[in-house]
């Protein structure tokens, strides 16, 4: 099926948002997945581009397994999670024959593949494209930004942190990366923000407290909100289930949805 491709494969993508963190393991992929599901839940057509070449987590989180990736005249066809094609995904996870195979590439090779991912995926019409990244401020981040800027405006980035100083310390550097590269910071999200014991409801601050909000104040960024540590969410992610559908009344969904709506407002009214 021929699609109108004037202006490249991103021409019909309304908004592009990067999900960044200087720190690893703060929940970038988890929140990319959950924000995508929340945006879909509110009627948007969403795409996810997973450029974490060494640790591509999104395919498992969306339970898409190991599908074959096809090419069409316009490039790679993304993998759709549903028949309605409301959520599309492209990840290097799809291109590896063996899921345990390590992608042991130096920077220039990673840069080249990311360039292809940005320009050669036939996304079609999307309201929002979320780009999940690995931790750091290196080849992948420079590559995705440079290539996106050539094709399309980038609305900005959401930065994920956990509350403790070891995390916010790295995210401060990511903020500098954004400022140096002219990438608008749409806001900061604090993940793993307290754990409520399911047995006695006592709240424990396992990864400390308050760092996300302090970081936002310190750097003059918008604080988008916090998401608690929720074993129901981590289990859903593990099993590739749609947390939004399974636990729509949870405080965690409410937190994620609020962040998704604030994000939408922010990118629709820059």
């Amino acid at each position, binding site marked *: 099926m021929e699609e109108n491709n004037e202006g490249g494969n991103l021409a019909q993508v309304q908004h592009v948002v990067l999900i960044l963190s*200087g*720190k*690893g*393991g*703060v929940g970038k992929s988890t929140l990319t997945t959950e924000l995508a599901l929340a945006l879909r839940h509110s009627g948007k057509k969403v795409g996810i581009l997973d450029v974490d070449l*060494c*640790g591509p*987590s999104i395919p*498992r*989180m969306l339970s898409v397994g190991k599908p074959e990736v096809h090419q069409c005249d316009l490039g790679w066809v993304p993998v759709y999670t549903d028949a309605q094609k409301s959520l599309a995904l492209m990840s290097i996870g799809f291109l590896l024959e063996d*899921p*345990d*195979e*390590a*992608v*042991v*590439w*130096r*920077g*220039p090779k*990673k*840069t080249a593949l990311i360039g292809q991912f940005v320009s050669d995926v036939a996304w079609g019409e999307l309201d929002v494209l979320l780009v999940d990244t*690995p*931790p*750091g*401020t*290196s*080849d992948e*981040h*420079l590559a995705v930004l440079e290539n996106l800027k050539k094709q399309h405006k980038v609305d900005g980035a959401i930065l994920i942190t*956990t509350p*403790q*100083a*070891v995390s916010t*310390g*790295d995210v*401060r*550097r*990511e*903020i*500098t*990366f954004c400022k*140096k590269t002219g990438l608008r910071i749409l806001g900061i999200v604090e993940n793993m923000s307290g*754990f409520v*014991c*399911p*047995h*006695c409801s*006592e709240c*424990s*601050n*396992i*990864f*400390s407290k308050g760092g996300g909000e302090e970081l936002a104040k310190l750097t003059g960024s918008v604080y988008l909100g916090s998401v608690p540590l929720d*074993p129901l969410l*981590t*289990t859903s*992610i*593990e*099993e590739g289930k749609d947390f939004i559908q399974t636990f729509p009344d949870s405080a965690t969904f409410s937190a994620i949805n609020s962040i998704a709506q604030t994000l939408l407002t922010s990118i629709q009214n820059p």
Partner: protein
Amino acid sequence: MADIPSDAPQHCPGTASEQAGKTSACQGCPNQNLCSSGATKAPDPAIEEIAEKMLTVKHKILVLSGKGGVGKSTFSAHLAHALASDATKEVALLDVDICGPSIPRIMGLEGEQVAGLSLCLSPRYVEDNLAVMSIGFLLSSPDDAVIWRGPKKNGMIKQFLRDVDWGELDYLIVDTPPGTSDEHLSIVQYLSSARIDGAVIITTPQEVSLQDVRKEIRFCQKVQLPIIGVVENMSGFVCPKCKNTSQIFPPTTGGAERMCEEMNLTLLGRVPLDPRIGKSCDEGKSFLTEVPDSPAAAAYHSIVQSIQAYCLSHVTREESAG
């Protein structure tokens, strides 16, 4: 930094790269002919220089994980503290996470930057027998971002290994960033003529983590890096009020234990989630000293003993073979 000459264009792939002299970025570079002739891909003399330097380092341990945020730096720091608690041992901790250097904070050395002496590669000392090196010491502000491509990161790692005056060491611990990329290839390459005892692999219990950690294990096997064993971190949380255990990062596919069985590796131990660990790290203190009677501290000590035993048995095997 020899990999990127000073007159190279912006996207120089590095003189040692397979693409040296051949990429579009190389067009017009004064070094293009030299690079494309292959002359720059001869074995890096630094490898032998580093091997020479490492003769005074008895044991070298890499701390790896395919996954970010599982506690590599936390573990590296506490391994260093534990080994250095024996005052007769000389220990050093090298942080090669160029983009996200956490070790200065975790070791209580934040603010140890030496302004204006960015080439100064003297390690900082936490104790008389515990030295630390990190790019964090070369940055003048906590907001400074190191936005470097691979070749430049490789050059820094080479300098750390070749040009830092480590002296005589019983243990050199190398903390790494997540992944299987430039930093990991460089560390293994530059230490290729200096025997590495092995790698300690850190994971958390859930499959999302294990999925990436298996790739790291494959990487180790590919580059023939021995694996000392696997540590499962954040392994359950005991509520301080009701004492019930919650699996916040659930081992839906059997956790590190099953992965170790399947891949024929040693499970060195499991460390539970303890909010006091994160607090100690934020404050730059050793959790082992702050909360010595906790289950997590006991787990750390047991794991460290296993690592020491491995390193010593390694030496014994080599001595009897030689």
